[in-house]
């Protein structure tokens, strides 16, 4: 490949992985990291590479699979989002102590903002906690380069390395000249060494000592040393930046005409910060502005709170993304110059996100509310979190928590004697990811609630990756399948029924049956099975199309737009009634059963 091509940051990192001869990559989808693994699968097919690429059931499993490959001497990587690293934190912390054989890269994508996450946590803090070196790219191009540097670092010191891109790196596109792909000819060869790979606490103490020695050397490793981007005349002040904040700062310095006067240091390895660099900046400059997302990780290591301006000093906001306009203001004020005020955005406007027109989840939530109008509705992470708009979602904590929280609500209320209806919702992918252990707990502890598994035959939120039930994996390769109903029954659940939410009357009856069962007999599981409307990978049959029109019986009561909230049902202010937006209507026909006046009619093709 010798042409510049437009690559998404995630595609660029994926190309970096195949350039570096990585053999095993495992991941669980999470925005903004999801496209890394799907792109690796594409490059693997394109270049016909000997690799194992998989969507694992969750991040812990993914990390452990990749780590074992590294123990066997291969180059391996795992990719996830920052909250996914929480799930994988157990093996991650241990892997740092045991070390690696083949290069091992943990790509943990952060989401300052946050744009599509529960938290704004900084994976670099996790790296620091685990004592793992971390690289912080400023662009898709640098992310691709740092994949290779990361493998070299990992192998030079036999240590896992974290690559920590952020949303603005993962989801930026840049013209990139991809490097040559070097298929690896390494063969897996696991050398037994129980003292190391199965170390008991006594050995772990020694391993910790070794780890500290490695880190001291990594803090002097030349290839990842901070770079002075504008070797300008010596100044009293300097900026130290990492990640995309460094990219913003570079452009802002040019625009403000400060390029020749204000030194800008870019740090690509924020932990461990290079020792010489710390000494240099603290000796050379009276004032240092530290720009980094999301937490003050470099700032912590540049401990001089009188001269270092950053998040801990209160100069840089602790919360939210460091936008380029924010950085412009910070740099101007740091340099003591005036800039014209930037135009402010209009007050909150626009539409809120909502489930797609025709989404099966909308029908599920509608039926759930009919069946348990006074219920408690714990839910989970996925598109269906948007059921919040419909009043069908009361709690969202983290992957799998819908089930365990339902257990908690049940036990909490049972102490007082009055148990309300509890209907928990979880997606199919999320169920496989983290829903099974709490389901077992529910059965064993006799927690009585309804669990609705919203089975749309995909991981929709992150771009329609496969689930274990589908029979295909990364890159479309065939896989074995796991049967969801069988799994639920094997956990000990007595009531397990499947329904199609788009058939609203029948599905509502099924929900009522399940709610009644839960009141008297115990845990009930309903599998709401209907494919995601935007999933192009779906291979089975789609429900029949039912084209609808609004009749004159519509009196504009707005019941359908507020209670059902389909974006294709639009209230027309002038006509004082509802109309169908035919540009986006998917002809699912579910709304026919929603209008109390029967004003929504099927009209045929």
């Amino acid at each position: 490949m010798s042409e510049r091509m437009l690559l998404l940051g995630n595609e660029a990192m994926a190309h970096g992985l195949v350039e570096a001869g990585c053999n095993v990559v495992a991941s669980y989808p999470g925005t903004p990291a999801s496209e890394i693994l799907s792109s690796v699968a594409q490059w693997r097919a394109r270049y016909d590479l000997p690799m194992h690429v998989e969507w694992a059931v969750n991040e812990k499993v993914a990390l452990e699979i990749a780590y074992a490959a590294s123990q066997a001497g291969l180059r391996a990587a795992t990719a996830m989002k920052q909250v996914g690293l929480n799930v994988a934190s157990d093996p991650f912390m241990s892997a740092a102590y045991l070390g690696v054989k083949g290069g091992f890269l943990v790509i943990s994508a952060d989401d300052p903002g946050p744009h599509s996450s529960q938290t704004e946590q900084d994976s670099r803090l996790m790296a620091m906690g685990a004592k793992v070196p971390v690289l912080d790219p400023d662009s898709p191009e640098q992310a691709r380069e740092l994949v290779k540097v990361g493998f070299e670092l990992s192998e030079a010191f036999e240590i896992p390395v974290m690559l920590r891109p952020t949303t603005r790196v993962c989801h930026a596109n840049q013209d990139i000249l991809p490097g040559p792909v070097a298929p690896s000819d390494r063969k897996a060869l696991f050398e037994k060494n129980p003292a190391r790979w199965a170390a008991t606490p006594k050995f772990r103490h020694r391993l910790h000592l070794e780890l500290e020695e490695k880190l001291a050397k990594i803090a002097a490793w030349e290839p990842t040393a901070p770079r002075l981007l504008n070797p300008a005349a010596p100044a009293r002040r300097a900026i130290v930046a990492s990640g995309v904040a460094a990219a913003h700062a570079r452009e802002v310095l040019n625009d403000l005409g400060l390029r020749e006067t204000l030194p800008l240091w870019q740090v690509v390895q924020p932990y461990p910060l290079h020792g010489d660099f710390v000494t240099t900046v603290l000796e050379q400059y009276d004032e240092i502005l530290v720009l980094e997302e999301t937490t003050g990780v470099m700032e912590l290591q540049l401990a001089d709170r009188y001269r270092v301006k950053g998040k801990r000093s209160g100069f840089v906001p602790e919360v939210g993304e460091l936008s380029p306009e924010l950085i412009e203001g910070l740099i101007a004020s740091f340099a003591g110059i005036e800039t014209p005020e930037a135009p402010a955005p209009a007050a909150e406007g626009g539409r809120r996100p909502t489930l797609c027109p025709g989404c099966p989840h909308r029908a599920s939530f509608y039926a759930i509310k009919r069946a348990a109008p006074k219920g408690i509705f714990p839910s989970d992470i996925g598109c269906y979190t948007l059921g919040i708009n419909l009043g069908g979602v009361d709690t969202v904590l983290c992957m799998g928590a819908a089930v365990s929280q339902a257990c908690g609500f049940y036990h909490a209320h049972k102490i007082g004697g009055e148990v309300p209806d509890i209907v928990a919702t979880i997606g199919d992918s999320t169920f496989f990811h983290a829903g099974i252990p709490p389901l077992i707990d529910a059965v064993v502890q006799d927690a009585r609630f309804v669990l609705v598994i919203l089975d749309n035959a995909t991981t929709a939120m992150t771009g329609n990756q496969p689930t274990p039930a589908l029979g295909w994996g990364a890159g479309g390769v065939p896989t074995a399948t796991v049967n969801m109903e069988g799994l639920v029954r094997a956990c000990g659940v007595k009531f397990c029924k499947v329904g199609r939410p788009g058939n609203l009357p029948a599905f509502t009856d099924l929900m009522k049956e399940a709610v009644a069962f839960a009141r008297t007999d115990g845990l009930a599981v309903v599998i709401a099975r209907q494919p995601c409307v935007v999933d192009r990978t779906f291979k089975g049959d789609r429900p029949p199309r039912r084209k609808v029109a609004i009749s004159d019986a519509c009196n504009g009561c707005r019941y359908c737009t507020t209670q059902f909230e389909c974006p294709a049902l639009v209230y027309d202010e002038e006509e004082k009634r509802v109309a169908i937006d035919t540009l986006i209507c998917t002809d699912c026909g579910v709304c026919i059963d929603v209008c109390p006046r029967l004003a929504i009619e099927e009209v045929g093709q």
Partner: protein
Amino acid sequence: MTGQQLIISGVGGQGILFLTRILAETAISLGMPVMTSETHGMAQRGGVVISHLKAGEFSSPLVRPGRADGLIAMKAENVAIHRHFLRPGGWVVVNAKAAPAGLDGHPVHVIDADTLALELGNPQSLNLILIGYAVARFAASGDFFSPDQVIGTIERRLVEKGKLRDASLAALRLGMENAAG
């Protein structure tokens, strides 16, 4: 054309990513460095989607408020939400039935691409109609991509997809024709 900073805005499902990619690949074919940045995730579920496109010597993937040369709005309501990105005199191309108010000092170009897409029987082609319109409108001024350059990108991209390619080019041409009138 020298450096350009553009904002493309609409709602989920309108094909903003594809439109951005077409413009970005056009820039690459002209030898320009390019960066784009889009919203992914929750916002795609029918919410507001914004895409930043920077062609030229830039290092940040985001356009700062007050710096965009142009705003392409695929929904009329998005003009108010994203107009603060425009530099003084920056242009607006908007898919609407009538020009939105409050844009004094900005050249505003209006096209009813919804209706055109429905007439074409291809609601998905909205983005291409809009881009065809925009490039034709700016054809003479030289401060945006030219119609031929964009047609070239689409042909390259969809070269193996006969039907889709023809439908895409038809939508693009429809937009261009409407710019002439």
